[in-house]
């Protein structure tokens, strides 16, 4: 027996206080004057005896209460050997069902081992859990052997990536809540990639004894399609040829020839043979991916015939659709803006947009709602009819990019955007003849990918008052002299982005800068509201079900639109309430997920297991021994299934804290003290 926090025992000095109050202070009672003692008689004998008895009982209770309280804080423990503690020990059976357990008969072996261990435990309190990417309890703490066996049998192979750090964290949380010793039996392939980044993440509490049951003892060779690089979307029927690049990796494998196939909607469209070096990687390039309109389920497969066939393919989805239309309105005679913007869009956005350029005089008969977004480039005049149509277009959800240029210098405010123009800034008159970007909001998509627009020279800009309050414009980029350069404002349900300079290579050299193409691409995607579709994700990744516009609308009180998720098995994993409110969705299975997002768009993604699960290397014994803890590595590593029971646990002394029992005694002592003290005070009142 000992205490875990002995420094609290210093508080025992506080016992002097009740001793002082009871023994010393009692003798200093003030004598009471009376007229005469003539009729009084001494009654000291009986009274003192009673009082001392009463006081000593009260004093003893108070001292006991203090001692117990201090003892509780000092956290007392007793060393109990494992055999003695076995009666209240919790046997926790954790079966690894991460993706790598699909190799061979690993999962079945693990379950057999767990059932064997369970049979040896008799009527012990036990709990069964499956461990993939996180610990999932299959039962409560029960003693019913049949229910525990059924729970073990019910564990299915998963697609998650195991992490022993996450397992240790969950066990630590469990140990905090159950307060009894835990005998953790881990049935796993002890895959090396499941080790946490640091060993401290895998530390187990003192009252947890871990017994590992490795279902394999040595690494097995495995080939896998490690990654596939393919676009998620293809635009139009005349799109440029799409390349698909796949990386084939071998873990612990000899050099070999692998046949790699590209499968589109179940039909092999291309096959190649690639030489994969020993324990290395090889890249395969399919130059042309032909997919029909709509979503196509594509795979890259290899003919591996290895221990883990489930990782011999990698899925991805590709969507083919018509490009969206965008409109650029410019001054009559301005050929530069359409040239630069059109070139940037066609270069970067994989022909996702077709740009239609017209001069301002032709714009009156166009319907803005036919376009994904509209660009107004340096317009001298904006006919009121067009201005009204554009304002209505924006209010109802449309998007606008306004490049102010030099023409706006004669106005007092920017049309549609509504910001007040303070002054024009002509930087050709400053010593360097230009102004660079001073600060930018790197979280803004149009800026993030462009890297903050370094080296762009601005010769002319408008100084705009962004305003204050809820209707204020958000300043995204400022020039070095703090002049706002790029601003965004929400108007109604739409948004307007304002560039206070031009797109014509006259007021700046931005169109010739490498940052221009990503700026136009990201701005176009942002304004059109078209997030990337298709593609591939990893198991356990989260998918955004609502974009920022929809989230903002929901925050503003608008009714949320339901989303729909269909998992690879064709089931809908979201409940109705989740479908109406969930912002994200975790992809827990490998396969193809179909989604109908809140904005009404359809999407489909291919979900693949974490490629780290394909590495079937096992954790060395010395590392496992280090993880289990000192002294018992020789017997606690039950490498063969069924040989799991620790033999030397009876010699192990484990400290078991009993501070909560002491706290119960503190409570009891406090109640007894209160009762006695109130009885004593009650006697005094009665005497009065």
């Amino acid at each position, binding site marked *: 027996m000992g205490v875990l926090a002995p420094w609290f025992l210093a508080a025992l000095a506080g016992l002097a206080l009740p001793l002082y109050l009871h023994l010393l202070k009692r003798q200093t009672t003030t*004598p009471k004057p009376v007229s005469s003692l003539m009729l009084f008689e001494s009654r000291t004998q009986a009274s003192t005896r009673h009082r001392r008895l009463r006081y000593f009982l009260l004093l003893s209770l108070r001292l006991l209460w203090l001692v117990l309280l201090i003892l509780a804080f000092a956290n007392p423990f007793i060393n109990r050997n494992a055999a003695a503690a076995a009666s209240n020990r919790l046997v926790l059976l954790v079966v690894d069902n991460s993706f790598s357990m699909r190799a061979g008969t690993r999962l079945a072996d693990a379950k057999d081992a767990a059932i064997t261990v369970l049979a040896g435990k008799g009527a012990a309190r036990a709990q069964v859990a499956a461990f993939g990417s996180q610990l999932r309890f299959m039962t409560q703490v029960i003693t019913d052997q049949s229910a525990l066996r059924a729970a073990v049998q019910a564990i299915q192979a998963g697609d998650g990536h195991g992490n022993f750090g996450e397992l240790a964290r969950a066990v630590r949380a469990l140990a905090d809540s159950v307060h009894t010793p835990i005998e953790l039996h881990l049935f796993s392939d002890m895959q090396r990639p499941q080790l946490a980044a640091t060993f401290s993440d895998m530390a187990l509490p003192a009252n947890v004894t871990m017994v590992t049951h490795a279902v394999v003892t040595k690494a097995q060779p495995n080939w896998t399609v490690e990654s596939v690089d393919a676009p998620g979307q293809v635009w139009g029927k005349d799109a440029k040829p799409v390349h698909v690049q796949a990386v084939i990796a071998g873990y612990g494998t000899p050099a070999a020839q692998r046949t790699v196939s590209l499968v589109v909607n179940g039909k092999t469209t291309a096959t190649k043979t690639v030489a994969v070096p020993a324990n290395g990687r090889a890249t395969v390039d399919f130059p042309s991916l032909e997919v029909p309109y709509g979503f196509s389920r594509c795979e890259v497969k290899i003919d591996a015939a290895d221990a883990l066939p489930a990782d011999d393919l990698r899925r991805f989805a590709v969507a083919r659709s018509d490009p969206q239309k965008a409109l650029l309105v410019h001054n009559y005679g301005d050929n530069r803006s359409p040239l630069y913007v059109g070139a940037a869009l066609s270069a970067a956005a994989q022909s996702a947009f077709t740009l239609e350029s017209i001069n301002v005089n032709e714009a009156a008969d166009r319907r803005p709602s036919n376009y994904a977004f509209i660009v107004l480039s340096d317009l001298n005049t904006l006919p009121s009819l067009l201005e009204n149509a554009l304002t209505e277009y924006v209010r109802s959800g449309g998007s606008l990019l306004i490049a102010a240029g030099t023409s706006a210098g004669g106005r007092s405010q920017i049309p549609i955007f509504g910001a007040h123009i303070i002054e024009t800034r002509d930087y050709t008159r400053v010593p360097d003849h230009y102004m660079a970007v001073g600060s930018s909001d790197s979280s803004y998509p149009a800026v993030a990918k462009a890297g903050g627009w370094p080296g762009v020279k601005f010769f002319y800009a408008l100084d705009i008052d962004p305003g204050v309050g809820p209707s204020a414009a958000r300043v995204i980029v400022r020039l070095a002299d703090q002049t706002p350069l790029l601003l965004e404002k929400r108007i109604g349900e739409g948004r307007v982005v304002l560039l206070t300079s031009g797109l014509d290579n006259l007021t700046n050299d931005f169109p010739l800068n490498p940052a221009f193409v990503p700026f136009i691409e990201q701005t176009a995607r942002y304004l059109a509201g078209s997030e990337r579709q298709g593609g591939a994700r990893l198991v356990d990744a989260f998918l955004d079900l609502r974009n920022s516009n929809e989230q903002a609308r929901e925050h503003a009180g608008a009714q949320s639109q339901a989303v729909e998720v269909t998992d690879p098995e064709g089931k809908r994993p979201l409940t109705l309430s989740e479908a109406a409110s969930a912002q994200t969705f975790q992809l827990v299975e490998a396969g193809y997920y179909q989604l109908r997002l809140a904005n009404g768009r359809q999407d489909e993604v291919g979900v693949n297991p974490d490629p780290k699960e394909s590495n079937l290397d096992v954790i060395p014994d010395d590392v496992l021994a280090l993880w289990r803890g000192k002294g018992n590595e020789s017997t606690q590593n039950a490498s063969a299934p069924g040989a799991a029971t620790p033999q030397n646990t009876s010699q192990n002394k484990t400290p078991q804290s009993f501070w909560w029992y002491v706290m119960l005694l503190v409570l009891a002592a406090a109640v007894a003290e209160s009762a006695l003290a109130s009885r004593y005070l009650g006697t005094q009142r009665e005497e009065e």
Partner: protein
Amino acid sequence: MQQRFLNPSVLAGISGLELVAKTVVDGFIAGLHRSPDFGFSQEFAEYRAYNPGDDLRHVDWNVYARTERMYLKRYRGETNSSLTILLDASNSMQFGSHGVNKMDYARFLAASLFYLAIHGQRDAAGLITFDDEIRNYVRPSTRQGQLHRLMAALDQAEARARTDFAKPMRYFQEFLKRRGIVLIVSDFWESPESIIRSIEPLRYRGNEVVLFHVLDPEDVRPKLNGPSMLVDLETKAELEVTPDYTKKEYREKVEAHLADLRNRTRAAGMGYYLLMTDRPLDEALREYLTLREGRN
């Protein structure tokens, strides 16, 4: 009859004993419907034929003028024309459990009686303060300023030393040569037997002796918060006593003591009045004077 009684604590707030006395006496007289004939005065009783040698001052000359016979006027209280108060000024009189201690209460009582005697009845009044010796003596007199002298003597009376009736009592005999009313105001913390033995001689000389037993409520019912050490104010002796004792045995002993003193006093032909200091003074005074009138 509606009466108002003056709380002793209220009286303690009045500065000046004369004012206290006036307040008390006027207070209880005002409570009566008719003019009272209470007091220590000489009351007409009968006529007696003149005998040679009688004092000519007592001849009723009006009767002589009408009848040409000489008669003397006889008065009922002709021997009680002097009031002397013996005030105990021992340390035990200092005890008080509320606003007024026994000494103050005794002062108020004495002052009220002096006021009544001198202002109301033009009687002679005197004062002796004593503890274990005689501390002060104001000869009974009806002279101008007697009331002020008495009040000053009461003011100066300080509680000290311890009570001893036997020692100063023999001197009382020397001072009280003239018969009258003798009021002894004390808490009488001595055995009733020795008190009566010490006081009885005053009665033999024809004085009307009355004992005013002034006690604090806590003298009769002490309040103790647990076993306590009690200190005698006179002897400074200490004694540890329990509440159980004070609740039962002590109260019985006090009752017995009071009964014994009352019985012995009355048996000796003296008057006895118990005055608790929480009792309104004018009420107590009224009760005493009513009883006295009834006795006469």
